[in-house]
């Protein structure tokens, strides 16, 4: 029975911890630790959150303690990145590219983000966690998660806009 859960969440957990530890071998160990910890703590899972959120929180804390890295720090609201270009324009330009070019563009834009920001954006889009759930997983306040996601999007759009401009030039 538990094997079904492991099978279902293993890639999501692996991908999440990989973004923190940055090594496949270590990510595998951390992911295994995560599932063992979750197994022994199953009776304490109170259904107050989604199972995935509860599991990601264990994964995040295990990865953080393994790397002896500090948790994500609170972010002051900083609007230095304000750039008034249109998202419609970015959409239009990106949609003109073929799928391979789009992926390459996104991959390069993601590389400009910090590890923490890559993890946050991945939790939001790939793992389908809400702002509230990301707040539970990372220990950040909800407003900080919102601000951080907003800045990550701006950064990604800004990077894509620059790079797509170069492609069209």
């Amino acid at each position, binding site marked *: 029975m538990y094997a079904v859960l492991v099978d279902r969440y293993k890639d999501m957990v692996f991908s999440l911890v990989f973004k923190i530890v940055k090594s496949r071998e270590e990510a*595998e160990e951390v992911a295994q630790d995560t599932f063992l910890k979750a197994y022994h703590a199953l009776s304490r899972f109170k259904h107050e959150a989604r199972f995935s959120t509860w599991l990601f929180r264990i994964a995040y804390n295990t990865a953080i303690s393994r790397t002896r890295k500090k948790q994500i720090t609170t972010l002051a609201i900083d609007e230095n990145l304000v750039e008034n270009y249109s*998202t419609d324009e970015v959409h239009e330009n990106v949609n003109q590219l073929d799928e391979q070019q789009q992926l390459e563009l*996104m991959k390069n834009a993601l590389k400009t983000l910090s590890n923490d920001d890559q993890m946050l954006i991945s939790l939001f*889009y790939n793992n389908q966690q809400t702002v509230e759930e990301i707040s539970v997983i990372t220990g950040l306040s909800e407003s900080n998660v919102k601000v951080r996601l907003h800045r990550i*999007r701006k950064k990604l759009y*800004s990077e894509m806009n620059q790079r797509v401009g170069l492609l069209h030039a």
Partner: protein
Amino acid sequence: MKTIHDTEPDDKLLMELMLKMPVEKAPESFTSGVMQQVYSGFEPVQETPELRRQMLFGYISLLAAILIVGVMVFAQWPFFNINLFSSTDQLRNLLNASMGILDGINSITQFLKDSSTVIIIMSSIGLLLIFERFLRRGFQQNRSFLL
């Protein structure tokens, strides 16, 4: 015109691109590796304050059950006006009757038919065990150490 400041939290373009991005996948043997560790390295439940509290309630319930049964068997409560054992002879007879399996079962059945006291005692024990189980609900996969 929509600007970057109006970007919706669930921005469609970013979501589409993010979902298309290849993600790091766990190795094929990952699940079997985890399950092997689960089966081979079962750890006992760690003693936490919550566990200690639940254990305390469990022991209190058990003690209360024993005390109540003892009181009901040995004490005389005339205000209840129920037919409790009034002498040790009755207890001895009950014990002797229980010793022979067939005769004992037959006698006990007859005794149960005739006596509401035993039924009350048994019901009390049953209720206490159920009460104890409710107290310990959620602990050790909902299994009581009494049941």
